């Protein structure tokens, strides 16, 4: 249970780590847009992807996150990637069959490769954000970004608070789960054998105590916050102030260059062909 890495923040002092969380979130979104901008016409799509890939590689180098960590995050969704690729391979009826009477078409093959590249690039970009930005920073950044929603009475601060509490309690609950599993195993519970239904049923003696203890923890936390007169939003000061600096400017410019590049590659080659 302890091996589950969640949030996967990789602590380091680097160019990307020092960037403003809000800017990083916006840049991650812009990067995903860039990946989606790459056109799907089979003849030249790979150049746009190559540009995106180059961007991710450079950003990774600047973030000092080891490459194998990045690969691990891709490994986590490999099932999803293979699944979408297989769907494309077998169910794409356009294009010509690769061999006489075959059900795999050239368009299907192109699409499978295209989708695979797209998903992997998106995951790489998103995990770079979570590797270089701690969960608390992400929550704070989102809160700041969502501030305009206050005008329509959306409780932005409370929303961000709920999010950071949830993230904060994941390791605590993992520990708790580990303990309850051990206790039930001592009473002969068996989580490793039997079919799917049996295994799901075997989880009940773990899930119920876990649910109850999370309610208990929630009560205790609420009391502790009340006791310290916690109140959200108005006049609240921050320990860490977010500030946009020169690194954010550079990051934004590089990403703008990437988007321009992708659009140009789409357009120029589109005309040329």
């Amino acid at each position, binding site marked *: 249970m*302890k*091996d589950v890495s969640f949030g996967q923040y990789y602590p380091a002092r680097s160019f990307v780590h020092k960037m403003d969380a809000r800017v990083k979130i916006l840049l991650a979104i812009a990067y995903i847009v860039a990946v989606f901008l790459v056109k799907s016409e089979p003849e030249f799509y790979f150049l746009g992807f190559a540009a995106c890939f180059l961007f991710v590689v450079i950003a990774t180098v600047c973030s000092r996150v080891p490459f194998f960590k990045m690969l691990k995050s891709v490994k986590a969704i490999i099932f999803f990637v293979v699944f979408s690729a297989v769907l494309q391979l077998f169910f794409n009826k356009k294009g010509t069959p690769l061999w006489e009477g075959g059900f795999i078409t050239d368009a299907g093959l192109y699409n499978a490769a295209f989708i695979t590249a797209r998903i992997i690039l998106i995951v790489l970009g998103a995990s770079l954000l979570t590797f270089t930005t701690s969960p608390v920073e992400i929550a704070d950044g989102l809160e700041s970004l969502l501030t305009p929603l206050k005008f329509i009475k959306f409780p932005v601060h409370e929303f961000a608070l709920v999010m950071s509490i949830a993230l904060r309690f994941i390791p605590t609950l993992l520990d*708790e789960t580990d*303990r*309850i599993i*051990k*206790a*039930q*195993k*001592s*009473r*002969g*519970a*068996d989580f490793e054998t039997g079919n799917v239904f049996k295994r799901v049923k075997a989880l*009940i*003696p*773990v899930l*119920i*105590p876990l649910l*109850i*203890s999370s309610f208990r923890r929630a009560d205790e936390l609420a009391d502790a916050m009340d006791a310290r007169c916690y109140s959200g939003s108005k006049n609240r000061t921050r320990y860490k102030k977010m500030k946009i600096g020169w690194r954010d400017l550079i990051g934004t410019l590089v990403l703008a260059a990437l988007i321009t590049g992708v659009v140009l590659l789409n357009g120029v080659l589109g005309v040329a062909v």
Partner: protein
Amino acid sequence: MRITTENLSYSYGENDKTLRVKALSGVSVTVNEGEFFGIIGQTGSGKSTFVFHLNGLIRVQKGCGAVYVGDYDLTDKKCDFKSLRAKVGMVFQYPEYQLFAETVRDDVAFGLKNFFPGLSDKERAEKVRRAIETVGLDYAKVAEKSPFELSGGQKRRAAIAGVIVTEPEILVLDEPAAGLDPVGKREFMNLVHALHGKFVKTVVIVSHDMNLVSENCTRAAVFSHGEIIKTGTPKEIFADERTLENTGLDLPVTAFLEKRLKEKGVYIDSDLTIKDFTDKFAEKFAGVKKQ
């Protein structure tokens, strides 16, 4: 069943060198049948990791020593952990957090159903009733109740009933008295002693409470940084004050009084239980009249 560990080591985070933490190193100890064995040491000294080995909750890592419980060789991959766990009952810290079923009766029956699925309904009901009564709960009152309606002390008793229902020969308790008031603590230890006289042959108890150890244990082991630095009777362990100081542990009240009296020239040599101490003390001063 006798418990033996030979040169037992364990490290967490085996897969990642940077995260590896050594929790046990070279622990060799034997607990004979019939003992009331204490395990003491600071938080993080490896006590829990050690006791989790005793019923296979933590498997012995490759090349990290051996654990034998009775005829079970826990280093053997083919070891039947399920039948072992029926014989080695484990009571965790705050055992009430493991309650889950709709009624106390169902919760207590959980272990029985897992370990002995062949029992008839009648046999099972009888064993459940006996377990609930053994822990001092009123069967007629609590059996049909939800475990979550019980009071704190009752919950803990119900949870313990769920462990002893399989009549384990060895009972392992990890900080069982944590969070109990003094009366609750005393009643709880009385319960453990009552069980020790019945089907439970050996008790292994992890505790921070030195009084609990001196009062109840036949022998104890002191853990520090994953190693056993001393094993012996409470008398032997608390005689060596320097080891205790280095491990941040305290003296039980009897040992403390003996030490203070000795400084004032009064020698009392008890086995550190309150009864023996007061007996010896009274004996010494029997002739002294009130001023």
